[in-house]
């Protein structure tokens, strides 16, 4: 047998050879002084590497990683704020031909259960987030949630709100829509003509909301711009 390639010696030591090849190689090494020497050399290097001790990480490593995670979250929060602001501008300003009614029925906040269409939304807490509004432009629905230090804009097509985490198809107050159930507060979003409307409040009040909603009225360009500006200003000043 000619001398085997050196890499077979490493493979043999690492148990990375088939049994037949390994047996043949061992037999050769037993009868070949130069291969025994080469084998010893590889064993020395391999043994030295494997004898290297564990090295403990420096103190505070986890804390530093947590700090970086927070820094990344802050960066994304800024991106989300800008995205939400841009969405607001697109929805309110760039779509003058679309009837846009940013409407949130807020029965919980109004003793009469009247729906206030002029208010974008009364921020209402849903678990860790606050739903601040739901809007529609053409086929696209967007909902803006404010989380702890961030804004989240969910954009969905009508009928696909079920794909939004936590929202499932449901019929409430005679309207088919998407419901996020809750015991104290629930969110119900539905299609009303060209608009997507969301009601936020206690389940009983939300059930009455679809009936209480007056016919959506068209907004003038000026009103849309004023609203967009207000949304952008509050997004940029409130959450940075």
């Amino acid at each position, binding site marked *: 047998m000619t001398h085997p390639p*050196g*890499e077979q*010696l*490493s*493979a043999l030591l*690492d148990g*990375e050879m088939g049994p037949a090849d390994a047996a043949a190689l061992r037999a050769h090494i037993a009868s070949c002084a130069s291969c025994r020497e080469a084998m010893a*050399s*590889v064993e*020395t*290097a*391999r043994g*030295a*590497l*494997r*004898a*290297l*001790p*564990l*090295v*403990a*990480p*420096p103190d505070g*490593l*986890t804390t*530093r*990683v*947590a700090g*970086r*995670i927070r820094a*990344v979250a802050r960066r994304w929060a800024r991106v989300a704020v800008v995205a939400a602001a841009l969405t607001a501008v697109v929805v309110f300003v760039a779509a003058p031909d679309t009837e846009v009614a940013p409407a949130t029925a807020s029965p919980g906040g109004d003793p009469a259960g009247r729906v206030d269409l002029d208010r974008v939304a009364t921020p209402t807490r849903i678990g860790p987030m606050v739903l601040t509004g739901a809007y529609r432009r053409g086929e696209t629905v967007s909902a803006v949630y404010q989380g702890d230090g961030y804004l989240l804009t969910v954009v969905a097509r009508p009928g696909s709100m079920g794909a939004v985490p936590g929202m499932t198809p449901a019929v409430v107050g005679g309207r088919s829509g998407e419901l996020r159930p809750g015991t104290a507060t629930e969110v119900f979003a539905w299609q009303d003509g060209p608009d997507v409307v969301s009601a936020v409040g206690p389940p009983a009040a939300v059930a009455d909301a679809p009936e209480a909603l007056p016919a959506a009225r068209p907004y003038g360009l000026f009103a849309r711009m004023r609203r967009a500006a207000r949304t952008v200003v509050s997004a940029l000043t409130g959450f940075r």
Partner: protein
Amino acid sequence: MPTWQEIADRYGDFLYTVAYRLTGDRHDADDLVQETLLRVRRGLPGYRPGSMEGWLTRIATNAFIDSTRRRARRPQTPLTVDHDALGPAAPGADHAYEATRLSGDVQRALAALPVEYRLPVVLCDVAGRSYEEIAQTLHVPVGTVRSRIHRGRARLRELLG
């Protein structure tokens, strides 16, 4: 499913050791482990029960390769290791774990290996990965892993004198 903090607690020594043997520098190892844990946190939802060490090694290796590529684009911070800063004279916690001069010599020799040899050698002899796993991690054929591990060890043996 463990959290990334639990993984950091349980596998911190393993991860930091692999990172230190790959980078040859405590500061770079710290950076590499931080980057690895960030990726672990992002990747956790996709983690399938299996070898946690194998998974961590793959993530750390990718992060290491990315960082060497970034360095290659910024030649003012070369990858070569400051040998004088290593070994027994290195400050702090080194003493507790690297008390022997031998491991300092091996570490210096390891750091002197070209990255293409150092990577498979560390994955095999420090992280305890199989040739097959290393081949998958490095996206090279098993035959290439086999020859690089052997050449890496042979070169290390020469460096150790």
